[in-house]
């Protein structure tokens, strides 16, 4: 073989080798952006909608969803990019709430009513497992999925709030015990309450204004609102959807003696002065005045208008001492006494507030007390004789748009 043949072979070999190397190897594709996998719920792959459609224990709920379909909740429950915490009553919860069959669900309510009913028991956008709920007094306030208005100047909806809580005695939606918790699904979690949580439709003031046992407290509020520095403020607050209050409303039987006492104390010196002016000696006046003052005070305190005879600041002090700036249901009360500030602390920050305590039987408080700083004994919350009794006969855990109302049997005295 001569040299040039070797060279030619070498050249061919080189050419082939280069061709193979080049064709066989490839540049890796240029790196591209990698999406972040949104964190899942860690639950089953079933959506909330699929769960309700398949679990027969929730057929009433599913029937309600179907009837309210035009409002879109069923579609939302199918959206895997959505997140919900759903307090969904099962069929038994419906029955406990007086809805005995699917036919009643579909026949007894309008679609819009059902939609509101369901949405009130939903926390949108978040997955709250029972372990995520605080045990701190009194509960956690979260927006429900029920929109009632828009917040002026924003695009934000005004949604009613829910108050889930947790304690040694259970896990609650407002004052309703949850009987089955933490069914985690692809797009949320389902908890089952004992009964249906009905959305409130009225304000605290509506109750105070109309309850025949609260006429004195109403009068006290109205008297307090004549304060020229904040005219009408209390009533407005009790009618404000943005407020969030607990009202310990002393019934008339409790408030009338207090009114009498306050009037008597105010009237007695006046009567003594009048008697002295009429010629009696101070000793004679002091001896004769009490029955006269008592009679006057008795007459004045026989109607709630008697509050108009008391100084505004005195009345206001009593009224606001009966209101907490949070919404506390009886099941939120601690089993060991705690002190908690009232609205009085808005003006007197150092005031020790009121003391709260309850005792429980199962998930329900059987006794709940609130004690004023100036009281010798605690007032009792007048616990409903049957749990969940609504107005007008319910006396505890009365749920309103802007708060909860408990009737109490003794006036709380701030000092």
């Amino acid at each position, binding site marked *: 073989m001569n040299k*040039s043949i070797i*060279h*030619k072979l*070498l*050249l061919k070999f*080189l*050419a082939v080798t*280069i061709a193979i*190397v*080049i064709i066989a*190897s*490839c*540049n*890796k*594709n*240029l*790196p*591209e*952006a*990698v*999406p*972040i*996998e*949104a964190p899942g719920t860690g639950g089953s792959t079933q959506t909330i909608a699929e769960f309700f459609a398949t679990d027969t224990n929730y057929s009433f709920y599913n029937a309600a969803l179907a009837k309210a379909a035009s409002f879109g909740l069923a579609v*939302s429950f199918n*959206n895997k*990019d*959505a*997140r*919900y915490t759903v307090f969904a009553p099962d069929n038994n919860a419906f029955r406990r709430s007086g809805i005995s069959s699917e036919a009643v669900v579909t026949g007894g309510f309008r679609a819009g009513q059902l939609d509101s009913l369901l949405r009130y028991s*939903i926390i*949108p*956008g*978040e997955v709250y497992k029972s372990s995520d709920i605080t045990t701190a007094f009194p509960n*956690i*306030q*979260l*927006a429900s*999925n029920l*929109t009632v208005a828009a*917040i002026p100047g*924003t*695009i*934000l*909806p005004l*949604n009613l*709030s829910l108050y889930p809580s947790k304690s040694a005695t259970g896990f609650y939606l407002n004052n309703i015990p949850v009987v089955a918790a933490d069914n985690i699904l692809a*797009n949320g979690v389902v908890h089952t309450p004992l009964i249906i949580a009905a959305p409130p439709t009225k304000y605290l003031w509506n109750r105070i204004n109309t309850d025949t046992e609260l006429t004195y407290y109403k009068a006290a509020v109205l008297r307090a609102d004549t304060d020229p520095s904040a005219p009408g403020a209390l009533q407005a607050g009790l009618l404000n959807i*943005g407020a*969030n209050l607990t009202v310990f409303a002393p019934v008339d039987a409790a408030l009338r003696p207090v009114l009498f006492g306050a009037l008597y104390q105010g009237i007695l010196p006046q009567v003594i002065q009048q008697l002295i002016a009429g010629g009696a000696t101070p000793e004679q006046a002091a001896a004769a005045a009490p029955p006269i003052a008592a009679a006057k005070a008795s007459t004045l305190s026989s109607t709630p208008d008697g509050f108009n005879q008391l100084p505004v600041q005195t009345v206001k002090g009593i009224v606001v001492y009966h209101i907490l700036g949070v919404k506390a249901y009886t099941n939120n009360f601690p089993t060991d006494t705690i002190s908690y500030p009232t609205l009085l602390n808005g003006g007197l920050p150092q005031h020790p507030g009121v003391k709260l305590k309850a005792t429980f039987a199962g998930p329900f408080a059987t006794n709940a007390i609130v004690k004023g700083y100036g009281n010798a004994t605690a007032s009792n919350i007048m616990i409903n004789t049957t749990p969940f009794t609504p107005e007008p006969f319910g006396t505890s855990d009365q749920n309103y748009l802007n708060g909860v109302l408990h009737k109490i049997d003794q006036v709380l005295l701030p000092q």
Partner: protein
Amino acid sequence: MFPNLKTMLILLPVLTTQLTIMQPSLLKPALFLTLFFCPLLLLAQVDINGSIKNTDNEPLSGVSVTVKGSGSGTVTDEKGNFKLTTSTKPPLTLIISSIGYALQEVRVKTAAETVQVSLVTSNSLGQEVVISATRTPSRILESPVTIERVSLATIRNSSAATYYDIVGNLKGVDVVTASLTFKTPSTRGFNKSGNTRLNQIVDGMDNQAPGLNFSLGSVIGLNELDVESMELLPGASSALYGPGGMNGSLIINSKSPFKYPGLSFQVKTGLMHTDGRTRGRSNYYNAALRWAQKIGKKFAFKIGGEFIHAKDWVADDYRNYKRLATTGNVIPGTRETDPNYEGVNVYGDETSIDIKTRVLNPLAAAVPFYAPYINALPATINVSRTGYTENEVVNPNTVNIKLSGALDYKITSSLDFIVSGFWGTGNTVYTGSDRYSLKDLKMGQYKVELNNGNWFLRAFTTQENAGQSFNTTVTTRLFNEAWKPSGGQTGWYSQYSQAFLQSKLSGLSDAAAHNAARAFADIGRPAAGSSEFRQLFDKVRSIPIVKGGGLFVDKTNLYNVEGQYNIASQSKGFADIIIGGNFKKYVLNSEGTLFADSAGTIGIDEYGGYLQATRSLLNDKLRLILSGRYDKNQNFDGKFTPRISAVIKVAEDNNIRLSYQNAYRFASTQQQWINLRVGTGVRLLGGVKQLQDYYHFDTNPVYEIDANMFAGSPVRRIFPKFKAETVNSFEAGYKGLVADKKLLIDVYGYYGIYKNFIARVNVAQSVNGNKSVFTNPATVQKNLSNPDSVNLYSVPTNITSDVKTYGFGIGLDYSLPSNFVVGVNASSDILSNVPPGYVASFNAPELRIGATVNNNGFGHDKRAIMSLAYRWQKSVEYEEDFGNGLLPAFHTLDAQVGYKFPAQKFVVKVGANNLLNQYYRNAFGNASIGGLYYVSFGYNLY
């Protein structure tokens, strides 16, 4: 000795020309240099005549004839005759070289003898003459330092679409491609767009744009048809080329109109983006023209122009980037899945705030019953504004126009008076601290020169105008603000946050709520390319940065005078000696948009001188070369840099080279005087003390952004006096022809120690002089990203500990029959000893491999030509001000076949760059480069 009257008269117009283009302060050095060199004009000169033929006894025209060890030279005329005038006294050696023929050295004993030479055809491995290694001609095989040469024939035969691309196929070279026409070669590391450690010298003029600090060789340099040769000196070369040549020098020489007369042109047309990956298929046009003419024997001129038009490559790295000051890293996430997404090549999304603390918490205070719901949201919710991708904000049209011209007058047969100029303009994209759209950038370089072969005296100026160039990040962020302000009741973030909360309240997950919120806040956002977008964007980009827009104004100029004299003929017997010197003045003028020059221009003066002595010993077996250079910049102490090199001839055509070089660079004009708040909120500061004083570093201390700061115990940073950066480089190499002169081997290894390495360091300063913003580990991160609380600066400083680099290169070229030459090469560059926390930006791959196959004449009448060039490089962790990230390994193949029509002087070529169209990037955040397929038609390409 006094200059004679005739010489003075001749010099007078030259001096006047120089003086009119120079600032008054330049007068002194110019006069000094002129007076210094004038006496030298009197030296005796001799004429040497001869003729060159081939082995068939046909005369050869265009053959280069130079006097060894001096700058004198000429080329043969059409009849193969030459007449060479030189001041070197015989006996002397002529080097005779021509492409395709073996180089010959001819001894001339007396001026009277007529030189008759017959050249033998050869594949010419190792037959080239280089000048830049010693500033005097020598055979490439005998160069004392590593050198690569790209000859005219290589350019003509290359598969690269432009001559600049050829450099990228040389061993040890990396090219950073910021965009189609913006290419920056680097050697021995520190690769970046606009590398300031590698000089690019075009016809004796430093091509660096004096304000922007990058060399514009590929944008505004020589027209391809006017390039005679490119010589690349990898490694330190300050000793001859002055400050800047830390890592190398690229010397590009144009064609003399005397040597290369006539008309030539070349048209290339091609296709890009053929797969439509980043933009629709588009055309590539490149047309070049050169016309040179001799008028009589004394006068010649040349004019030329080149025009390029194409749709640029697209920087399309849309990965998510987490940024902290000028460092950061790529993280997972897309616009749809990360509300705080910041795409690498997406601009405007650098604007980011924590909506939790800045919008939602105040909202919770206003709407208390949502407070618990808002409080339950994550403590920090960072949200970035919606950006636009680079191809949406940068004009896709790359236009590049280069014009050049020169007049060459022979005052005497050996003394040329040359006036020349280059001017160019174009649109291109550059990567610095941000991506810059260089729009209607203009740069001109103008020179007058007296050149006698043995000495020259030249003055040049570089006139730069950034045109309508803008910072894409800053401009797009401002565009977003101009469309819809971020802050305020109805601002983008307020709308976003409300819509986010609303979406959450309707049940959406965080991710879905973020997308819904973005869709809401972006309602009415101008679509890229719409007339509304164009109008608003053009408005923002044409407002100077100082006035709240994105335009940077830069009209910085450079003035330079220099001279060199080769006194070999006088110092003969002892050593061949050359001496030279220069003076340069920068006039920074950015109207406050780039430099701290809002009050007026800033001048920077720099001067230097050098000397080189070469002595042959041991019967020419050993050649020792000693060079030294001194430079002084007004902002730095003076620097002396020596170079010692030796060439040992182990056998004919086999040489070992050894060198020690000390090189240095003064910080670039930007590293001295920049004062620019970049898109990411960091203020880039120059290193001069005046700037630190201006920002009260003395009374309101700056702290290092490091682990100590995040631990709550920040360390105050005090900047010592700014020094020049130096490198001590040791190199050994071997170049030789073996295997019957068919195999050319070139091997080198080097070791470099950088001292006072200039790197940027990030520091933070409390806006209110309140150190506590840095002392709480829980809030320091948040404070750092809040411009109301903390100022961030990036300040260049000298690293006190030494940084070391080392590497090697090996190249083998083998000559096969039928004119085929195959080559393989491998090279490596490695950095070590970088202290933690410094951004060294070394960026060179640990290994690159190249292979080439070339043939400049085969087939029928040797009319066919071909070229293949293959390159592979290892992955690199790339670091630059713009961003840090892994650059994957890539390979690329260029190929070309062509056919010559000698009678008609035509050449037709079909070629491709990146033939396989496999996209790659050679720098983080830069354009991804695909295939470019072209057909070229050339006339009279020599």
